[in-house]
């Protein structure tokens, strides 16, 4: 039995309905949904898992990042109907109420890697995914993997410096990136 009791579509909703079953944060959920419902809206407003945030609904900002079958994905680009039979993990699934923060969450707290906190669940889920992947591979992530990971979301508050530190702490890398006074030749920006 699940504690998560999803609410259903409004009666006026004109698109077709489906019944989907999947797991979220280890609990099984069965829900009636309409065809066009975004996964973000389903998670946030029907399951009331509001830790997953919406910053653009354009697939660009990363605030909505969750894990789908263990992989980080933008939940605003997925329809609820697509997750039938699959496994979802959101920020609420990391540390339960009263539990200790995970190593990734703790790293963000230690490094002051958040200000308003709106982008934070997305970054935490992305870094968590990289950490788990590197643990599974039995090797530390490469610098390029770390950069890709922190480049995957927008933060408008922090200027990223402390987010990078938090990611590096969480990934077991030296926290401070030395300032090299030479150009990084060959890297492409934008």
């Amino acid at each position: 039995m699940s504690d998560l009791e999803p609410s259903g579509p409004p009666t006026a909703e004109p698109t077709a309905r489906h019944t989907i079953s999947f797991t979220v944060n280890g609990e099984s959920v069965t829900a009636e949904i309409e065809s066009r419902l975004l996964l973000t809206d389903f998670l946030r407003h029907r399951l009331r898992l509001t830790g997953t945030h919406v910053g653009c609904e354009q697939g660009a900002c990363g605030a909505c990042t969750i894990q789908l079958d263990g992989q980080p994905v933008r939940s605003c680009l997925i329809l609820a109907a697509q997750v039938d039979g699959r496994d979802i993990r959101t920020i609420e699934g990391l540390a339960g109420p009263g539990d200790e923060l995970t190593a990734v969450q703790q790293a963000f707290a230690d490094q002051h890697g958040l200000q308003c906190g709106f982008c934070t669940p997305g970054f935490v889920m992305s870094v968590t995914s990289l950490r788990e992947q590197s643990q599974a591979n039995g090797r530390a992530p490469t610098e390029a993997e770390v950069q890709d990971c922190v480049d995957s979301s927008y933060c408008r508050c922090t200027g990223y410096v402390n987010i990078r530190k938090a990611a590096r702490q969480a990934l077991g890398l030296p926290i401070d990136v030395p300032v090299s006074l030479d150009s990084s030749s060959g890297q492409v920006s934008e």
Partner: protein
Amino acid sequence: MSTEPNDWLIGQSVPRVEDDRLLRGAGRYTDDLHVPDAAEVAFLRSTEAHARITSIDISAAQAMPGVVAVYDGASVVDRIKPLLNAEELRVPPGIADLDPVNKLQPAPILATDEVNYVGQPVAMVVAETRYLAEDAIEVIDVTYELLPAVIDVEAAQAEDAALVLLGEDDNIGVHVRHGKGDTDAALASAAAVITETFSTQRYVCAPIETRGLVAQQDPFTGSLTIWSTTQTPHRVRDHVAESIGLPVDDVRVQSVDVGGGFGQKGILVVEELLVPFAAHDLGRPVRWIADRFENLTADAHAREQIHHITLGADADGTLVAVKDHIIVNLGARNMVGLVVPYNALCHLIGPYQVANADLEATGVLTNTTFTSPYRGAGRPEATFAMERAMDRLAAELGIEPSELRRRNLITSEQMPYETGLLDRRGVPQEYDSGDYPAMLDRAVEMIDVPAVRARQAAEPDRRIGVGFALYLEMTGLGPFEGARVEVMPSGRVRLYTGAPSQGQGHRTVFAQILADTMGVAFDDIDVLAGDTASIPYGVGTIASRALVTAGNATAQAGELVRERILDAAAGVLEANAADLTIEQGIISVTGTPSVELTLAELIRSVPKLAGGSGSDGLGETSYFQPPNYATASGAHAVTVEVDTATGRVEILDYVVVHEAGTIVNPVVADAQVVGGVGQGIGGIMSEHLRYDENGQPITSTFSDYLMPISEMVPEIRMDEIVCPSPTNPLGVKGLGEGGAVGPPAAIANAVEDALRPEGVSVRSGPLTPGRILDMLRSAAVSQ
């Protein structure tokens, strides 16, 4: 202050109390609130930059499934007063003496007969869900008769320019001219004069959380509760009450967790009146959260300015005169009056001494989205012009740019320093404290100018350059902010203030101040900011003001409550109040360590105190009115390398030396500065909110509007100097905006320095690879 100085929390990097909740996904942002039965709003917005509305037909929309109500201009025009951001539009007496133009152009709640920019609200649908509301928007039929649209700010000022707003005489919304001395005479006899046009492109705050609100009417009392992303909850309260005709006591605005603001959420827009109106009209909760398209196209824009600037100097580089004509693109209406134009004007000269100045600012209307302050509010734009011009003057005179700056700085011995101009309040502008030479010297040393020059000489094939930007910021805008401090029945202490946080860490920083002032434990303090029901008056978190105004109000209120506690405890303990101390929330009698009283014990006994003061409880409200601005300052220095084949600019080293008085929480303070630098880098490197020639916005998604990602912001090396402000008891200054002020000028200066061999002129941003290549090509053609 009661505890020993070495126990003080002020000055310590206390970990933020906000973080645990936010990291668990347990934040409570506006769109997270579950308000049962809430209907949702979608807006039909103008698709034209300027047009007459010849007809609107909402009947099909009204018949759509799940639609609760549809409103057009005609249905609200007599029911909601048009929007005026009255506080921002007020002209203080001293400024009024300058005979400024400041046209009042109230924004129609929904357009009735004319639209003036793409994105302007035309109709509002309330439906069971946003999906259903958007379905209904699709079937509203509007016909437009196109009118000439004016997009370019210079063209808008032409004699025969079409009108942006029908019914006005011209396209000027704001104008003010102010100066000192005899600028023309000083320029005529100056040894060196440079004249140039520097401009800042339109870019936007774009917090990751967009604007939104939920409004709910109490079915029994008719009072309204509004949960909002606003930076200024009391202003929202007053405007909603006034515009829909409710007693102000019956409107409660609460800002919950807010996902960044940066100025965009600091001014009111019509949507913030329409949503509460709908909740009131329908007797049902109503929610609206802007989507990103609305945020980028129809919420406040910022920054667009042109500066026609002239500097004159003696042969040794001593500045003798500054002349600047500032053109500010206001968008379709004068929404915030003199705020940005005058802020730019009175911060332009910054840390330099100049005897003669002639400064003019013109706010011009165009058929584009209205504009608002954005972090720095005119200072990044003014600093871009002034600091770029200083580099030109240095080149003209053959003086090292940092040395030219050094020769013209106001010194710490001259503090407090009167500039001879009027500040934003219309009183003589006085810098309270600072040490600009020390700040610059530190930055020069850290970036190591001689080493950069040596590298330029040693590696002539590479394009490396160094640039500086110095600025100052008059922080702590009045007129007041308040704090209410109360001992709760549990013995914990609550602080209420009107200045909410959008990520700045008020719950932590204000609790540090209160813990020190009252002698209670930090962990026993809860800070609740931005609820109009908890404190009757407030201004909000804008203009680098919260720490100065709310911080000092907190200290004042804490001091008063501490006295109340000691008086009450004296009654309970039958001791003399002068013999009592309070530490970590425990009251004891000096010399009698066995007698102790906790706050919980005390508060329980207060109502029972026979012959007590007659006051119930232990609480006080206090308002702090800053007597002057607390002037913070900063020096940014940067080295860059430009790849002339690709046009790519790489930041090699970025240094910030800043001065913001007493620092309450160093980690939080540094992070505010770095966050600002990130936004400044975005502004100069990639962000550009663009329109086509018909006034259609063409950067309406995050895939077109390019904000910085992590790899665009380098490590920032920081240092600080401390000059506590004499304007307030805590000695603090604001620093929320400062970080964003320096990067555009510093980076542009470094890029022009790097490309000096090519003769490139950098007059505006963004410095994207494409624009750098264009600059290189036009420099090649003209050489």
